[in-house]
């Protein structure tokens, strides 16, 4: 029973693997397949040509058809294997195709042309990564400028948000004052109105304040997210009041208590909020789309989505750009997730 307990609660028993470990690992491996598989496929697809992306059914790896050089032809010809008829087994280059029939050439004998039906030949394909999807991006626009704008917005807005939200959360969790519940309810209450409808009023306010087409127009409203206050407040509640009282006995100022005790003890929640804030700002699309209209202010997400037209979308470029914008934030996550580990468990418990 104690082992079941350890499954439901904390850690693996020392030594041999218990069945709960097997269950856990099975779940995790299933998770890789279900959660990570599509992401891996996305990355592979970003190396596919438009043709390959439109293909039914989609294939896992990117392919391209082989070509053969034949004397007398300027361009290489598409290569096929003949699977039926007198040329069976030969590799041929196709010169023309019309209406279900192909005209082909055996490379060793460039003068003679054969007419075959399309079901007699099979294309020869190999795995080929369309790296031009990526290189085009750097030719087409100022990637570094967009990267800088995104980074500046993300870093500034995250720092601002963490500071402001943790101060508010501290006030709402560790002080008794009149209006506390109302403030909290109003904070949660604004979450109920969907962002979609708030966009236009918010746009008018930001324009009125002169922040249209300025990176600050994205940074400052972004720092006002109610979720952060709520999340941190709920975590700070679990910090025992005795720790604060002890510090007050030592004549520590309230700011010092906040900065030296509350913040370090809330590390896991702050790490989580930092991850979320970075992700929100980095991936933010709808809001920057309405506030930023000048290329020099564009973020990566705006540049990425400019591949979507009215009638057609440039998927190869869009996917390559998606992968590129995903990399930095994935790295940030890998780094920050380590901090979701040290909390009260190691510092304040005993």
């Amino acid at each position: 029973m104690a082992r079941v307990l350890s499954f439901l609660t904390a850690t693996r028993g020392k030594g041999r693997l218990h069945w709960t470990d097997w269950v856990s690992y099975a779940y995790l491996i299933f998770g890789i397949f279900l959660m990570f598989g599509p992401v891996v496929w996305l990355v592979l697809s970003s190396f596919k040509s438009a043709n390959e992306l439109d293909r039914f059914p989609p294939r896992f790896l990117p392919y391209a058809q082989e070509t053969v050089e034949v004397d007398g032809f300027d361009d290489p010809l598409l290569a096929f294997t003949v699977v039926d008829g007198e040329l069976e087994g030969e590799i041929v280059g196709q010169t023309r195709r019309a209406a279900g029939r192909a005209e082909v050439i055996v490379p060793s004998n460039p003068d003679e042309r054969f007419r075959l039906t399309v079901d007699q030949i099979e294309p020869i394909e190999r795995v080929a990564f369309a790296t031009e999807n990526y290189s085009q991006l750097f030719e087409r626009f100022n990637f570094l400028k967009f990267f800088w704008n995104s980074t500046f917005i993300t870093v500034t807005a995250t720092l601002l948000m963490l500071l402001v939200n943790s101060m508010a959360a501290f006030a709402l969790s560790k002080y008794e004052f009149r209006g506390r519940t109302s403030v909290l309810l109003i904070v949660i209450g604004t979450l109920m109105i969907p962002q979609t409808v708030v966009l236009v009023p918010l746009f008018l306010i930001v324009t009125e304040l002169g922040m249209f087409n300025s990176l600050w127009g994205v940074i400052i409203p972004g720092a006002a997210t109610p979720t952060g206050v709520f999340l941190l407040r709920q975590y700070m509640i679990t910090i025992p009041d005795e720790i604060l009282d002890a510090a007050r006995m030592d004549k520590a100022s309230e700011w010092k208590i906040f900065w030296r005790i509350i913040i370090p003890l809330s590390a896991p929640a702050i790490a989580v909020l930092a991850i979320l804030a970075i992700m929100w700002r980095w991936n933010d699309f709808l809001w920057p789309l309405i506030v930023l209209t000048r290329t020099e202010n564009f973020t990566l997400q705006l540049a990425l989505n400019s591949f979507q037209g009215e009638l057609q979308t440039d998927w190869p470029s869009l996917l390559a750009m998606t992968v590129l914008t995903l990399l930095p934030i994935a790295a940030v996550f890998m780094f920050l997730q380590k901090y979701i580990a040290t909390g009260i468990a190691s510092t304040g418990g005993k």
Partner: protein
Amino acid sequence: MKKTILTTTAMVAGLGMVAGAASAQEVRFMCYSDGNECEVYDDLANRFEADNPGIDVIVDVVPYQAILENLPVQLAAGTGPDLAKVTDLGGLNEYYLDLTDYVDADYWENSFGETLNWYRVGDRQGIYGMHSQLTITGPFVNATLFEQAGIEMPGEGATWDDWATAASAVVEATDADFPMAMDRSGHRVAGPAISYGAKYFDAEGNGSFDGFDAFAEAFVSWNEDGTMARDVWASQGGSTYADAAQEFINGEVVFYYSGSWQVGRMDEQVGDFFDWQVVGSPCGPAGPCSGMPGGAGVVGFEGTENPEAVAAFIDFLAQEDVYAEATARTRNLPAHLGVASAGVEFEDVSPAAQGALNGFAGALPDVSPIAFAYQGYAGNRAMFGITVERVSQAIVGELSVADAMERAASDLEAAMAESQ
């Protein structure tokens, strides 16, 4: 562009002129791309800047969503760009800069004719927009499938029923999956609907769905009996756009009703997988064998600080040689009558695509006057949306065709009441 400003400054300073004259007029062009349009305009803008020192045209490439949803809000708040490429031609009329005083009005009237009306609403009858890409709807046909099946392709003057019968026979005889497919869009059904008797306007010239029922009946029953690829309309909801290009490219559809803008994609992606060609829009019981015109245009906005510069740039784009070059490079149909009659040699396209584009251009005279008027009607976006939503509901069986049409009429009534 920076270089231009620098040289200008140096030149002016060298002549000992007042420094104030050297400050460049910056003009912001909000552009969206369905292909390479914005790149081409950026290139042309550089040439314009070289001819017009002191004007700096900056092309901001945005997602189409920004043009459709945010541009109207920005214009209302007075923070719009100086010019933009738009598709809601009549809907944004109140913000357009009238170019009449800045350009050669006769040249514009003679060159752009009918399309100028698409930008006009009510008593605002000036010259507002240069229609930069004309589109027209029409069918793509997989000729290889017809040949494999040994069935003769219906010829000139064939009706929708003729095509449906022929395409179904092709599917019987080959391993294609769907006889027909049509983009999920209210704009796309407009041509066929007119062929079936839709009037789209009432006696006072207001939008109406009178006469649309016949086509709705036919279209829903085609989706039911498998003549139409049901996925396209039935697997989506709301007023979202969906096309069937992927199915056509994979050789699953015999007859695909879309439009001229797909030519480039077909050319690149079908390759030599099969032969495809463009035929004229089929005819219907009500007579006209009409497609539906459409497209996008470049407009200036009244809020701009540099109306002369904006007008000068649009006028530059409208000049016959520049327009012809842009058309050839972006592979669009020309709305400029002079360019159209001279014919366009499109860049980087196969003979098949050149033929297809010419085929679409050749179908223009068949377009019914109703279709032209509908394209120029400021309320058409509302009507496109209603068509798609309600017809889809009939296709999936949420509403009967009659109920769907009744709802469409009341939706339209409510929309018109609000937008007055």
